[in-house]
């Protein structure tokens, strides 16, 4: 048996595990006891990786669609077709007629190559990835207040916090290590405040649970800031030395009185007061949040408001404090760091900055497109309107993951060329012109960057299934065919180039990532030990900037025709669009079908019993699913996981986006419920 140390493929925690290889096959996993984060533990998804790697449903050869059905093709033919057609489109419509979706599941090296391919080989900045749908507003919101957008502190620091304010996140299910660490903190005496419309497993351990109306976050956050200022709990010293624009913030929050906040959010004034007191007076308080904060048309405002709150209370720049977005995918932090974004090159260096471009142009030996490209949501709209003619999707499944999938489908069908690089025949792959089979994480080398900015090695344990090929090899091959030589022999060489061009990754190299390394960026040079928490001395922008924000309603509010708020989200046993977890018997058996959570009072009103079929209708689509009658949701609110293709929640969701981050409002839309 060979034990290959690597990193879990699922969430952003980044747990260390060994793949146990016997006779060339993975026949088990073992959690790494010596790993600094998971110390010998894994969640159900991590433990079930051997079932995923049995290879069921894997694509084994390139496929070309001819007359409506897929025909097996050689790599030579498939890549030849893709490069010919891309060249044709570029000639006919220009490079900006091409869009590229990179992947938060792929390695740093692959994301880097994908964005290099987009910018250098094709000549467009139309590159984006699913961070657009999860934490785009974290970046825009935190850039305004702190100057850069990443988790400020580390996952291990939760255990030592004195207070934790957790909002719009269900870490027990989505970031199991963080969930465990928060529970441990409570058992050690920390006070836990959960602000969430739903009951989550951690509300069992919470001292205060505030159940806000979905989409009302700015109001309760501003309300808390007002209480902290008025009661004299603000950290005046921190505000004076480390921040600016405090007066304008104080002025803007002064109108968020207890009664006004209660009217907007439904949170009783006395509870909000207690929460504000616990957080502000705790000494070390951590804010942690997820997509309950970011997936709103006010996502950027929500995030800015949370960072205002942290700065008012002086809860930043020290261990066990800060504003901590919990990143969803195993490498969504890395995909952002690598510049798989329409406006940034690696390490958040702006594409519109001439000096930055020149630095890359010199190394890449090519002229780069100068202005910001299109986001995922804009590329989909562009495909619909005819502006985008060709799209390359690597390891994403927009036909299930993006809002308003009826619209997504129409848009994708209008494309002249859709190329999907995938492990499985996903919904999106099934409507592609060319499907390229990619190798899994167990079949290649590379690095992932987890939610707390730690860069970790993944290692090749077994040979690729069938003719599948690692994403980085596919990109290199395609690029060469298009006339732009990449010339890498192995991923390590790509990381060397990344380090040379990216200040925050400057000291990263494969030799430093051996053993039990947990190297957290910024790591500017070879002797730098990495950075467990940010902003010890100053924020990225120097002083923290208080950014006043005002409450605005969600894009779609309930009315007599569509009286329920639909919140979408995820569950423990499944991963995103289920392309992986629904093939894993252990996980799929736990929750084999989709459902909608309905409060018992609402269920009684529309005469729906538990497990009965119910129809959900929004302004964009409709579906039938099973009712789960539960007090986990409030009256007037229903919740649906988006993993299930048979009851695809995103048929219903609203594609309206945040003005700045372009993140869609996946957490709030209006629906009606009908008995079937």
């Amino acid at each position, binding site marked *: *048996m060979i*034990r290959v*140390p690597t990193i879990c493929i699922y969430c952003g925690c980044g747990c260390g595990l*060994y793949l*146990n290889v*016997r*006779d060339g*096959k*993975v*026949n*088990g*996993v*073992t*959690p*790494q*006891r*010596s790993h600094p984060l998971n*110390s*010998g*533990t*894994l*969640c*159900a998804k*991590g*433990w079930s990786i*051997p*079932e995923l790697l*049995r290879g*069921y*449903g894997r694509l084994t050869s390139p496929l070309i669609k001819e007359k409506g059905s897929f025909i097996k093709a050689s790599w030579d033919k498939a890549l030849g077709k893709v490069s010919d057609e891309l060249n044709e489109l570029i000639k006919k419509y220009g490079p900006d007629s091409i869009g590229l979706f990179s992947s938060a599941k792929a390695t740093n090296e692959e994301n880097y190559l994908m964005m290099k391919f987009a910018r250098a080989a094709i000549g467009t900045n139309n590159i984006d990835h699913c961070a657009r749908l999860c934490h785009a507003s974290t970046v825009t919101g935190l850039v305004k207040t702190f100057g850069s957008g990443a988790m400020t502190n580390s996952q291990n620091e939760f255990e030592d916090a004195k207070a934790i304010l957790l909002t719009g996140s269900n870490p*027990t299910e989505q970031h*199991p*290590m963080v*969930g*465990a660490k928060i*529970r*441990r903190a409570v*058992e050690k005496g920390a006070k836990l405040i959960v602000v969430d419309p739903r009951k989550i*497993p951690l509300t*069992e*351990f919470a001292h205060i649970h505030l159940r806000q109306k979905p989409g009302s976050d700015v109001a309760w956050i501003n309300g808390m800031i007002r209480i902290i200022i008025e009661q004299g709990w603000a950290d005046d010293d921190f505000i004076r030395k480390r921040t600016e624009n405090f007066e304008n913030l104080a002025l803007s929050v002064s109108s968020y009185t207890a009664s006004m906040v209660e009217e907007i959010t439904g949170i009783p004034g006395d509870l909000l007061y207690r929460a504000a007191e616990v957080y502000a007076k705790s000494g070390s308080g951590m804010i942690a949040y997820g997509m309950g904060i970011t997936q709103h048309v006010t996502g950027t405002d929500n995030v800015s408001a949370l960072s205002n709150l942290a700065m008012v209370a002086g809860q930043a720049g020290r261990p066990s404090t800060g504003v901590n977005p919990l990143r969803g995918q195993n490498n969504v932090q890395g995909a952002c760091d690598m510049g798989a974004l329409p406006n940034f090159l690696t390490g958040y260096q702006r594409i519109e900055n001439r000096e930055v471009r020149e630095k890359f142009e010199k190394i890449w030996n090519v002229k780069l497109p100068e202005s910001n490209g299109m986001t995922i949501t804009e590329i989909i709209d562009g495909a619909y309107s005819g502006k985008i003619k060709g799209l390359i999707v690597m390891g994403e499944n927009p036909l299930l993951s993006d809002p308003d999938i009826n619209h997504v489908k129409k848009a994708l069908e209008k494309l002249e060329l859709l190329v999907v690089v995938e492990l499985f025949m996903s919904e999106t792959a099934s409507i592609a012109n060319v499907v390229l089979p990619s190798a899994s994480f167990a079949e290649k080398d590379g690095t992932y960057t987890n939610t707390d900015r730690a860069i970790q090695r993944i290692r090749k344990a077994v040979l690729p299934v069938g003719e599948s090929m690692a994403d980085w090899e596919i990109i290199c091959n395609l690029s060469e065919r298009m006339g732009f030589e990449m010339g890498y022999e192995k991923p390590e060489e790509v990381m060397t180039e990344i380090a040379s061009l990216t200040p925050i990754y400057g000291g990263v190299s494969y030799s430093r990532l051996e*053993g*039990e390394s947990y190297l957290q960026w910024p790591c500017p040079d070879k002797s730098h030990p990495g950075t467990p928490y940010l902003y010890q001395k100053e924020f990225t922008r120097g002083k923290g900037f208080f950014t006043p924000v005002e409450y605005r309603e969600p894009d779609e509010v309930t009315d007599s025709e569509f009286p329920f708020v639909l919140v979408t989200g995820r569950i*423990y046993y499944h991963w995103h669009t289920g392309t992986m977890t629904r093939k894993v*018997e*252990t996980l799929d*058996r*736990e929750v084999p079908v989709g459902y909608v959570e309905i409060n018992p009072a609402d269920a009684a009103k529309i005469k729906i019993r538990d*497990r009965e079929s119910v129809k959900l209708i929004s302004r964009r689509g409709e579906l039938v699913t099973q009712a789960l009658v539960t007090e986990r949701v409030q009256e007037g609110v229903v919740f649906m996981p988006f993993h299930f293709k048979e009851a695809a929640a995103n048929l219903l969701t609203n594609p309206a986006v945040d003005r700045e981050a372009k993140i869609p409002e996946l957490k709030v839309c209006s629906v009606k419920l009908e008995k079937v």
Partner: protein
Amino acid sequence: MEVTIKKISRSNLLKFIDILCRGFEVIAPVKIGGDVFFNPVKKSSELTLDYINPVESPKRFFFPQIELMYQMDFEKHEVMRDEAERKRKKLIFGIRSCDLAAINSVDKFFTGEKTDSYYRKLRQDTILVNLLCHECASECFCTAIPGGSLYCDGYDLRLSPLDDGYLAETGTTSGEELLKQNKSLFEKSGKNDIELREEAIKKLKKKIRSNHKFDKAVEKLKSEKVDSAEWSDIAKSCQDCGGCCYVCPVCTCYNIIDDVENNNLTKYRCWDSCLFSGFSRMAMAHNPHKTFGERLEYRFMHRLKYFEDRYNSLGCTGCGRCDVVCLGDIGTGAVLKRIRCR
């Protein structure tokens, strides 16, 4: 059978292992990264003797986490089985008594009333070389529960660490044979060696019992005096990972997967856990163990009472691995401590 008691120096022990490597796939404690695993070695220099207990028991070598049972080709009417694993002649070196006790229990389950051919083929003819403990980890609680012991029968050869080498005792004719074949490496044991060994084990037992004492908690559990409210309170921390069952050297539950693709059926079995609701769910979503609390109660009762009732053999051998692997900090040791405290 006659028991032979000999002594072997540390350097000769390594030579002995090198010789064993020629005839067996020797599976021994190996340091990989910062962790120690049972892993195949080609020579003695690859293994470590400086370990308390490997991260996992050797269960995986007899009962892999995922095991291809067979493959069928519908068109060609062919059945294929994975034979590579079955041809290996294994020797487990350095197994502690807790894991040995576990193998004895698992043997009863898989080859007792009815024989599981998959298990038997991987398990049969495996030589077990028991190495008694010289130290305990904080999670170890073998002697803190009734019936638990730092000794266990079922070995082919047992080694006990002494200051100047190892005491070697044979337990089976296979063990006897190995000793005979390598006579020159072994010497006569000293007069006091057995006594010295027993003293060391006694001391270790005392140390474990100063860390943990679970007799009363187990008794309370066995007489079913832990009520459902307490179980549901404990279960609040359960994150449903299944890890406790996976690392348990005695747990044997598995699920079957049938993959039908093109003209092929591939049948696997893989580890399962009674903490998953799907494990006990029946038609119409009926579930005798509906809540986490009920499932946790069932698991503990099975490990500490029902298994013993049925097989007259320990269902928990006190290795403490479930305490290390538990995301909810409610492994067996932690729960027994909680029960005792109330």
